[in-house]
């Protein structure tokens, strides 16, 4: 999967500018950055839901397209989906598997998913009657109930307790990616990203600020350090907030080993 110089703007507001990204098969990439950095927009571009104004994208050998063939290869977990009325948790997972028959590729059977995702006591409930964390678990379980080559996750850690984040990270690393699946996820949880063995790409002001492996993170991160805006067309209000990553890097609060994509596989296999 390659992204070359893409530019995305909502009107005059530039969200992504000249973003490059290359992800190898079987790799896990965590896109990080402060709120509004463009993480979700990048994922939407990769999913073919947003067409860049400039640049090129190649996902699984071609431009992403919003059709059944593409979605049989790509699983996207963004906001909590609207579940079908009158179907239980178990039936939803079975339905996902049923629509992807024959199941050629790595995926988990329904019973195991329910067990791993901690939903045995809620298997016969309607998704609408679950807590937000349980619904997030169900969304992720549904994505892993079917085979796919690329998993796009937008803040998968949201609403999940700390313990299950580690379980999910392990599942992505030793299950999905170990069987050749590629994961690109936007996340704010560095521990989760690290546990998943993800190569981290930091977006700041719509540009890739750093790419590499996180080695050490401070426990308390400053979130609103001032920085100069490189983004054209930004309002003065937005220039004052949400620029933490650039500020953090310039303050040398983090230790990065830049451009070390080769180390991610080492770390993954070690994990």
């Amino acid at each position, binding site marked *: 999967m390659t992204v070359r110089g893409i530019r995305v703007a909502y009107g005059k507001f530039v969200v992504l500018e000249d973003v490059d990204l290359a992800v190898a098969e079987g790799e896990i990439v965590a896109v990080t950055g402060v709120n509004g950095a463009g993480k979700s927009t990048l994922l939407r571009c990769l999913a073919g839901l947003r067409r860049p104004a400039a640049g090129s994208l190649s996902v699984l050998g071609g431009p992403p397209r919003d059709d059944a063939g593409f979605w049989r290869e790509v699983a*996207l977990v963004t906001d909590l*989906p*609207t*579940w079908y009325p009158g179907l*239980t948790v178990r039936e939803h997972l079975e339905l996902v598997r049923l629509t992807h028959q024959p199941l050629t590729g790595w995926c988990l059977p329904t019973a195991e998913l329910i067990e791993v995702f901690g939903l045995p006591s809620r298997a*016969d409930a309607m998704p609408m009657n679950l807590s937000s964390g349980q619904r997030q678990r169900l969304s992720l379980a549904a994505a892993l109930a079917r085979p796919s080559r690329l998993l796009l996750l937008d803040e998968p850690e949201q609403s999940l307790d700390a313990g299950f984040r580690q379980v999910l990270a392990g599942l992505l690393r030793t299950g999905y990616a170990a069987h050749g699946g590629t994961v690109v996820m936007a996340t704010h949880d560095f521990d989760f990203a690290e546990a998943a063995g993800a190569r981290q790409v930091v977006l700041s002001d719509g540009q890739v600020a750093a790419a590499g492996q996180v080695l050490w993170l401070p426990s308390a991160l400053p979130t609103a350090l001032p920085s100069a805006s490189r983004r054209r067309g930004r309002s003065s209000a937005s220039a004052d907030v949400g620029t933490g990553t650039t500020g953090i890097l310039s303050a040398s609060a983090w230790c990065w080993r830049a451009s070390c994509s080769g180390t991610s596989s080492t770390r993954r296999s070690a994990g």
Partner: protein
Amino acid sequence: MLGDFLDAPFSRLTAGADAGSTPVQAEAGIALVLGAAAGLVVLVQALGPLALSPADASWLLLTPLARRDVLRRPAAALAGVAALAGGLLGALALAMAGPFLPHGPHRAVGAWLALSIAGGAGFVLAAVLLAVLAQPIPGARARLRLACAVLAAVVVAAGVAGARWNALSRPVASWFAHASTGVLGGVAACAVAIACVAAVLVWRMLPRFPASIAVTDSARAGTTLMAAAFLNVPLLTWIAEDSYWHGRLLPSRPWPRFLLSLPGRQQPAVALAWVDWRRLGRRPALMITLAASALIPALAGAAFTGRARSFTVAAVLLAGAIAAGLQGTAATRRDTSDNTLYRLLGVNAGKAVAARAVLPALLSAAWLMIALALLAAVGVLPGWLWPLLGLTAGPGAAAAALRIARTGAIDAGEQGVDSPMGPMPTWIGTRAFSVLVGAAGCYPMLKAVLAGRVHGGSLAGQLVVSAVVLGGYLMLTIRMTAVRRQQ
């Protein structure tokens, strides 16, 4: 036509028994009024019944203010609306029964009208206040809703049966013959007394009305009212659907084996379409209500006369067929609103649209078949081909149901396009067009109903029109989906 429609019941208010009407029409008309009253109580219950504006619910309920002072105004407004609607229904009931009250209205119109309005207002007010009393009691809401549904079903069925068998309608007709101003006055006094007792009970309950119930019901009422204000039927049905499934636990069942034996290319779409089949299988009460609602065209046919009758019956048939088809589109509506899950399923859009058209077409066809069979049975429509005509018209109505289900959510903030009447939101046009699609799909049937006769040509014509309209809609939808994805 509108004049005929409005004039039909009210012209009978002062007419004699020889005005060309029959007791059957009076009974059917009163059955419609009673059914409407039951529906009104259910509607009011869906809005609370006792509810505050969202702002008041957030800011005033959870303060030291006396609960009765906070709830007094919405309670009074609710009582006022109920009394007004009840009075209107009372007047309508009198209009329906007018010609068959020999001691009555044509001699003292003012007194009979006043007593009918008072009686109607009293009964409906009492029922609505009873709903308020039941509001905080767990389970009472559902029981009251069931009682209203049973009442509506019984009176509608009795009205239709009375139109077919004189033995059933004769006792009611004889009661009409003996009704006098005194009897009506007694009934009205009784209704007002019951309403007064209910009002006292509600007044005494207000200080201890649970805040949690008021907050929850106010939030639901706010959403429902906003949806109703914009004729947002999908949102209204969404609210009703979620309300039904809330808190339910179901035994998970394996998907049918035949889905696994289907050819690989068809299997995903059929499995996706099966979601609505399973949902309907789990809502038997909805199916029974749907079947019972097929009585309404027959009742309308028995209650109205002249040109108004054929137009009313045709309109009710079209609306009922589309509504029946919509019951099979819940999953489509969810996917229209948010296609995250649909993408995860990775189903071919064209095949999914086609597979999902089967259930609405069957539901519309079955509903029309029953409704037209009943219309033929009570003698409103002569002939025996009507049920077959209904069967063939189902797919035409299903095209409208599918189009409504696939229409996007209403944007309340939309500016609209300029029109001679001012800015016109586009959603009005899209929804009106959906109904026109249904009318086009059922055109031969509607034409036959308006003419009051059916023949083989109508059947053949309807078959062709249904195939063209539904097939055309599906082809257009699939093509437009493909074009949208290429953009």
